């Protein structure tokens, strides 16, 4: 099912964009997991425009380029367990698409917005208003065209300081307009307005 209402175009505003690479190693690990029902669907791991990207805090790479991914199979919030947050953190919003595969390419051409104004979709389940502090979590169900509805991707969500997971992740962005559920919005990516725990 796709969104029928009109979504806004990406705002032509200043943003800081960096090149990074798709996390092929983690993609391979998730695919080789026999208990993972989504492992056979490559499309689940494709990176689409305006998707939130996360990266592992500890990465081993010889080229110094960050490996990112847009999907995570399985829950990331289990009670007060912060083990997932200890390993992963927010990186940015994708500026272009990338198809998930294991083939090595010298230049993947994956660009990520890490600062300034970017466009994203509100899949938090509630309306988000202008100025709201945002952090991230797993989306419920995507209705964006071209995204599998059961893809476990990430979405911006209103920051709640009483939620331990939110405090762990910190504020990563600020909403710049009112956005209904499944609608698009502009966000200002900020280097953690409120420091993380």
């Amino acid at each position, binding site marked *: 099912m796709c969104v029928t209402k009109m979504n806004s175009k990406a705002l032509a505003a200043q943003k800081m964009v960096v090149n990074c690479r798709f996390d092929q190693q983690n993609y391979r690990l998730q695919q080789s997991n026999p208990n993972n029902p989504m492992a056979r669907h490559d499309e689940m791991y494709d990176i689409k425009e305006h998707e939130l990207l996360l990266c592992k805090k500890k990465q081993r790479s010889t080229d110094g380029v960050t490996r990112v991914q847009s999907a995570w199979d399985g829950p990331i919030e289990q009670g007060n367990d912060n083990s997932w947050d200890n390993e992963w953190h927010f990186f940015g919003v994708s500026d272009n698409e990338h198809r998930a595969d294991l083939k090595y390419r010298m230049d993947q051409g994956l660009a990520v917005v890490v600062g300034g104004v970017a466009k994203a979709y509100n899949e938090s389940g509630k309306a988000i208003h*202008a100025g709201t502090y945002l952090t991230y979590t797993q989306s419920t169900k995507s209705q964006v065209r071209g995204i599998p509805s059961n893809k476990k991707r990430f979405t911006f969500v209103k920051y709640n300081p*009483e939620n331990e997971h939110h405090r762990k992740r910190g504020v990563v962005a600020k909403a710049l307009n009112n956005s209904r559920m499944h609608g698009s919005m502009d966000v200002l990516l900020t280097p953690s307005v409120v420091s993380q725990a």
Partner: protein
Amino acid sequence: MLNLNQYGKRRRNNLTDQTPNLNAKRSNPPASRGPPSGSNIPVRRRSNQVYQMTNNTTSILIFAKPFSDKREQHIVPGALLFTCGGKNRMSTVLNLPQMNDALADSQNNGNLPYMAGSTQRASVPKGAAPHNCVTPWIRSKYRDSEEYYFFGIMRNEANSSKLQRLLNADVYGRAKVANIFGRNLRRGDRLGMILLEKRRTKRADGSAEEDRDAKWQWVPTVNGRVAKHLLDDANHARMVDPISHGNVVPGSNDIDAVDAIGRRGLRERMFGLGVVSHAVSEKPTVKHMCQALEQTDLMNSLPQIEILMV
């Protein structure tokens, strides 16, 4: 004789040498003796671009909902904008004195004051919550209030209408803001706002405040500390609680009290505005800056400084 082109300018390859090339018969070019000189690198000396691609401003349009007392008409360029989103594209937009008014009203247990020259009470039905403050116990005090966030700094008006205003607000990059931060700002100072308790004497429209109890208010910070003039001049500023609940005597910026609630606790009550990039405008008086936190007219008459919102 100079070799001129049709525009009367010297050709680029003649910029370094006017003499004929004596080594024209040499087959191989000479080895490089260092970085290339200017003759091979095109240098753009003329351009239609009238500004540098640095410190650019990102401005966002925001629809301001009208009030019955037309308070939205008092928002002028350089004002700090606080917004509360609605169900549609329109948002309730307040400037800093109006925001401090709304914060005070929400602590009056619903006893909203009368509007100036009117028998109607001010229209802040649910009260306002300072949601840029992420301290849980302060947020819990405003659980039923409408959530206001700092949005940006007003740049200009895109479209004027009697029904609503379409405001252009700077959210990133270069902006000009009313100077409520101090008389001796320097380039590189980091500006922000912090939520502290403070007594009030005036309301945003200039009328007298009836309730003189201490209220949570947004006040300016410079380099992570409460602005110096608010602490030095306690008579005008009426700061009850510079850092935390009565731990600090007004007039001191006691670092021990900062440690008492922790650096993190202090940061949670603050939000950043940006970095001073140009502050050589006229210096406002301390009284003017203190009263501008409460009265819109005084806020609008303050000189402005240029900051870089980050």
